[in-house]
């Protein structure tokens, strides 16, 4: 295939042409600083607030509860660090899971160095957080539960409503990293008992490097980035008007198309999963079979290593990933795959394919054929496969 096949939409997505279109006027024409007094600039404040309203509506929140950030990562950092500081008189204990994104895990490590205590809850073999363990982990000093809405590697969707109920029952704040789930599954913060929620535009065909943190009214956490009075005094820095407008546009489209889009993606995903499991031996699907993101498939191919597979797919114009993009280049296998109980050598041989509505059956067919060829080639090269065959034959 000449054309590139992009199957890494969990890493980032193509900025939609309509989104770019919406942003364009805010660079060289309407470039005023939204904090300025004059009319020319204050129209940009309106544009910002329109985007904010679109986003607020998408999760059943109010405009005043949405704060733009410079990334999903920043939103996660903000939620954790500022809560930790604001509630330190109540306690110093935070509960999270073993399969969070590094934006949460590394922030927890940072907080640990500052004297906070962190409990990392286990997940079952499908990647679902163990609710009984979660509830048992709660102490009088627990100030925050932070559990992701859906996992970025294996796509498993967490029982958010149940976690929200546990948090509420124990009067503990509940933050969820919804960077992967946002605009892929229905989210209503009040119904689900969510106090804080992080999201990021570039996962839904918006621009890279803008996100938001939802903070429920009445939660008194301070700001994370200090300075000017932007974002109602809670997040300083000259506003990114073009990206906020683009984010708003991306959300508008994603919400309008959600039902039909995710139905199609789910069909294509299931077709992909079925073919791979049927046609590539010694292969497993990671993550929950049905409670998973509509666009996520994650496989482990025994006896081979993920990076080699990725490079060979790349040579065939297929863009895919193993684990999260941010950890590539590292020696460690994915902490998520280890958490669901995979042995190291199998965790190393994993492949994540994440779809968008732009992908076709033709692309998937081509990809499956290539996977078969490449896995075969790599197994022929693998001393592990050699040993396996020797043992089986004997």
């Amino acid at each position, binding site marked *: 295939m000449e054309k590139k096949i992009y199957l890494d939409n969990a890493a980032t997505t193509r900025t939609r042409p309509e989104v770019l279109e919406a942003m364009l006027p805010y660079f060289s024409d309407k470039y005023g600083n939204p904090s300025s007094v004059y009319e020319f600039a204050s129209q940009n404040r309106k544009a910002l607030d329109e985007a904010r309203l679109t986003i607020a509506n998408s999760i059943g929140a109010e405009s005043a509860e949405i704060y733009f950030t410079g990334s999903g990562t920043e939103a996660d950092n903000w939620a954790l660090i500022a809560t930790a500081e604001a509630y330190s008189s109540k306690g110093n204990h935070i509960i999270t899971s073993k399969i969070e994104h590094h934006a949460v895990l590394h922030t927890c490590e940072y907080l640990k160095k500052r004297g906070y205590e962190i409990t990392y809850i286990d997940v079952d073999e499908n990647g679902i957080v163990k609710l009984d363990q979660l509830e048992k982990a709660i102490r009088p000093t627990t100030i925050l539960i932070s559990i992701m809405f859906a996992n970025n590697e294996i796509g498993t969707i967490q029982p958010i409503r149940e976690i929200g109920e546990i948090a509420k029952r124990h009067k503990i704040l509940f933050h969820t990293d919804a960077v992967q789930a946002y605009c892929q599954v229905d989210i209503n913060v009040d119904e689900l008992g969510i106090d804080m929620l992080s999201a990021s535009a570039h996962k839904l065909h918006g621009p890279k490097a803008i996100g938001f943190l939802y903070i429920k009214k009445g939660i008194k956490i301070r700001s994370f980035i200090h300075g000017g009075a932007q974002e109602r005094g809670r997040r300083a820095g000259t506003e990114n008007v073009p990206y906020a407008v683009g984010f708003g546009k991306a959300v508008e489209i994603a919400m309008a198309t959600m039902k039909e889009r995710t139905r199609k993606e789910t069909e294509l995903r299931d077709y992909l999963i079925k073919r791979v499991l049927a046609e590539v031996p010694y292969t497993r699907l990671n993550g929950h079979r049905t409670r998973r993101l509509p666009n996520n498939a994650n496989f482990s191919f025994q006896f081979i290593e993920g990076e*080699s597979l990725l490079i060979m797919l790349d040579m065939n114009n297929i863009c895919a990933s193993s684990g999260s993009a941010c950890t590539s280049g590292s*020696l460690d296998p994915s*902490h998520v795959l280890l958490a669901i109980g995979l042995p190291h050598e199998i965790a190393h041989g994993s492949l994540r394919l994440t779809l968008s509505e732009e992908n076709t059956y033709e692309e998937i067919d081509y990809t499956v054929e290539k996977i078969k060829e490449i896995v075969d080639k790599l197994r022929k090269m693998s001393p592990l496969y050699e040993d396996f065959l020797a043992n089986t034959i004997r």
Partner: protein
Amino acid sequence: MYTKKVMDHFANPRNMGEIENPSGVGTVGNAKCGDIMRMYLNIDDNGVIQDVKFKTFGCGAAVATSSIATELIKGKTVQDALKVTNKAVVDALDGLPPVKVHCSLLAEEAIHAALWDYAEKKGIVIEGLEKPKSDIHEEEKEPTY
């Protein structure tokens, strides 16, 4: 990320395969860390490496370093093969990304492991050859979560 040379050796690995009844064979690395290399050697009576094959489970750099390492030692005497350092491997590939340099160490180690096996089988001592660590990652720690 990788040089052309690395990509070439990865896409078209030289001397990939097995040798039946080799003079020596060595396996290093471990699956935990994501790379395992196995080297097969056929060494003639003059101590010249007549044939070499490898199998590797690992990343692109692991495959490429194995491949180039076989080229670097093929036709060499055992003594000359011992002089092939990991730096020579890296240079022959026009460089490796810093996080991947350990692969070249693994390749050096795999040669040494195969030579050790050869020496043990023959009941000889190869000057300058130390018993290879079975796992060059030994000193590295597990991730904390």
